[in-house]
């Protein structure tokens, strides 16, 4: 009995002292990523990157001499779980800011929680409704779909292709893209002559392509995530499709080239700059950050860093900048974040303001082309 009591006491002491030691000099940052579950392809690189960046910051002496502690929870892609975890981060872990969640659905669910608790959130999800309208405590790092559309249209305009066919996937990503494609077309003098869709699980799109081929279109824009666009690329090759094909940023990964094979050659798409980091001109302000991220990720995880990891990199680095300038309380971080100007990150150059918590322009994207099973910058 006595020994038990002793052990109990010493354990208590140990726990108390260790929390005290931590509390003395650490800045606690919360992270919500769907490391497992359907959006694991987003959450895993995001969690990895956040860890990597925080470790790097701590090795370099922390922020203003204070170490950073990253408390990351897995949301499994479930909005309910995301809300629970966010509450836990705020109430139990007393974090000063949260990065994530990975998906738009989870982010929308978490927003009321952080707004009520006055804790800044930097989401890594892409949906434009996250920051439109602006929420006081909510920022985001992933590029809006509208910017990718603007980038393609800008390119089409310069290449004098005005009659365009669009083929979008009938899910959330495709619906949002279709909306933006239709809304922005008049501004660039573009006429949509075919507006067709395909199902996310469809396995043959030759019918749609045959119809588009028979139309007046001068170019085709395909809006979807793998595997649909790869099937379309292969169908187009089978049909001897001659129109230039543009894809969305949803397929700017090596995976797409692997799926589409030689049919991917010559396709163009707007993409974040990560995949062409090496080929960027030296004067590109993002080049240093991009190379640091790509090399760091390769070194630590033996994999190429991707856009998704980049969103987490930007979120942590934006926080770091804000804490350096303003201090480590939630209110100070929020105010400093909103004053972020010319932050050259992975996703683009961020300029937050009271009216814009997304912070990017269409220059966050670059038009790339598939050549020799790799990416080159399209001119």
């Amino acid at each position, binding site marked *: 009995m006595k020994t038990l009591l002793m052990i109990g006491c010493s354990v208590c002491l140990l726990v108390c002292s260790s929390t005290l030691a931590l509390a003395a000099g650490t800045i606690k940052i919360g992270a919500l990523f769907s490391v497992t579950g*359907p959006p*694991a392809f987003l959450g895993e690189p995001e969690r990895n990157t956040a860890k990597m960046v925080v470790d790097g910051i701590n090795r370099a002496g922390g922020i203003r001499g204070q170490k950073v502690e990253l408390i990351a929870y897995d949301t499994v892609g479930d909005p309910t779980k995301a809300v629970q975890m966010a509450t836990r981060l705020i109430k139990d872990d007393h974090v000063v800011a949260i990065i994530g969640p990975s998906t738009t659905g989870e982010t929308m669910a978490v927003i009321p929680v952080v707004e009520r608790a006055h804790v800044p959130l930097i989401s890594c999800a892409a949906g434009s409704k996250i920051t439109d309208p602006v929420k006081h405590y909510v920022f985001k790092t992933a590029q809006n779909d509208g910017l990718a559309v603007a980038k393609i249209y800008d390119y089409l305009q310069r290449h004098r292709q005005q009659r365009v066919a669009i083929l979008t996937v*009938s899910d959330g990503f495709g619906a949002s893209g279709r909306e933006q494609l239709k809304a922005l077309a008049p501004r660039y003098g573009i006429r949509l002559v075919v507006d*067709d*869709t*395909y*199902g996310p*699980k*469809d*396995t*043959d*799109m*030759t*019918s*749609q392509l*045959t*119809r588009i*081929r*028979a139309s007046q279109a001068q170019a085709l824009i395909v809006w979807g995530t*793998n*595997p649909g666009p*790869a*099937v379309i690329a*292969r169908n187009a*090759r*089978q*049909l*001897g499709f001659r129109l230039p094909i543009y894809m969305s940023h949803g397929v700017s990964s090596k*995976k797409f080239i*692997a*799926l589409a*094979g*030689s*049919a991917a050659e010559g396709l163009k798409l707007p993409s974040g700059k990560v995949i062409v980091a090496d080929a960027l001109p030296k004067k590109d302000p993002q080049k240093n950050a991009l190379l640091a991220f790509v090399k760091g990720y390769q070194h630590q995880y033996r994999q190429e860093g991707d856009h998704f990891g980049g969103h987490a990199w930007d979120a942590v680095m934006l926080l770091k900048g804000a804490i350096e300038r303003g201090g480590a309380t939630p209110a100070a971080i929020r105010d400093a974040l909103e004053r972020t100007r010319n932050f050259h990150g992975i996703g683009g150059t961020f300029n937050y303001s009271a009216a814009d918590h997304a912070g990017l322009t269409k220059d966050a994207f670059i038009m790339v082309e598939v050549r020799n099973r790799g990416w080159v910058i399209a001119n």
Partner: protein
Amino acid sequence: MDFGTQLLQYLLSGLSTGAIYALIGIGFSIVYHAIGIINFAQGEFVMLGGMVTLFLLQSLHLPLWAAIPLAVLLASLAGLVFERLAIRPLRKAPPLSLVIVTIGGSILIRGLAMVIWGNDTHRLPSFSGDDPITVAGATLLPQHLWIFGITIALIILNKWFFSHTISGKAMRACSYNPRAAGLVGIDVRRMTMFAFMISAAMGALAGIIAAPLTMTSYDVGIMLGLKGFCAAIIGGMSSGLATVVGGLVLGVLESLGAGLISSGYKDAIAFVILLLILLLRPQGLFGRPESERV
């Protein structure tokens, strides 16, 4: 391009998709005749075909010609295990329970596939290149010819098996009257097992020949399974030509619908046909109410 060529293109695309549906549909009807239930795990064997072939190619570095038969064999073994573990212990259960068991089995197989191979989409290499072949203005890939060829061969083989071999005839006997078949010395349980193995193998082969065109992932079985079921219903659950025609009709209608009306209705077309047939002609498009079901 003129309208005629467009139409031909829709037709060719539809026929090749339809051939896949037909093979899956035949798998449904074989099991249906053996124990009188719809095996909703049929789609998962289609998935297993593609995924196991991919696994053999990438992890064991087998050549394609060896990986395909091995994958079909493994899938039919999976069919056997499925029958042993999920169907046989419930021999006395009412058909509805059995059908629900097959749905449970399909979820289990899909889940296992996701745990083992992840949730990425993969592509099998084409059997003989990707250079398009032009037919009167429309285009085909060599893989389409493989699909047509293998489907025709399988249908002939299937017909021969059920009409001219002892095992095939025994299976037919079981489908007419299991009790009588048992009385004349046919091992009914064994025939049920065969039915599961054959249908799994056919499904797997359908999955393999389609995968170079359609890609494969752990969850392709759901939709393909439903479309195959649809084909079998149109064909009145016959394991012969009627189901093949059912599959082809379905494929062509989908393709024409997507091309001429809107691709948004593609899946709707299949399921509207399914409902119409079930409501108006439950014996199938070609069947008489008491047709011979083989």
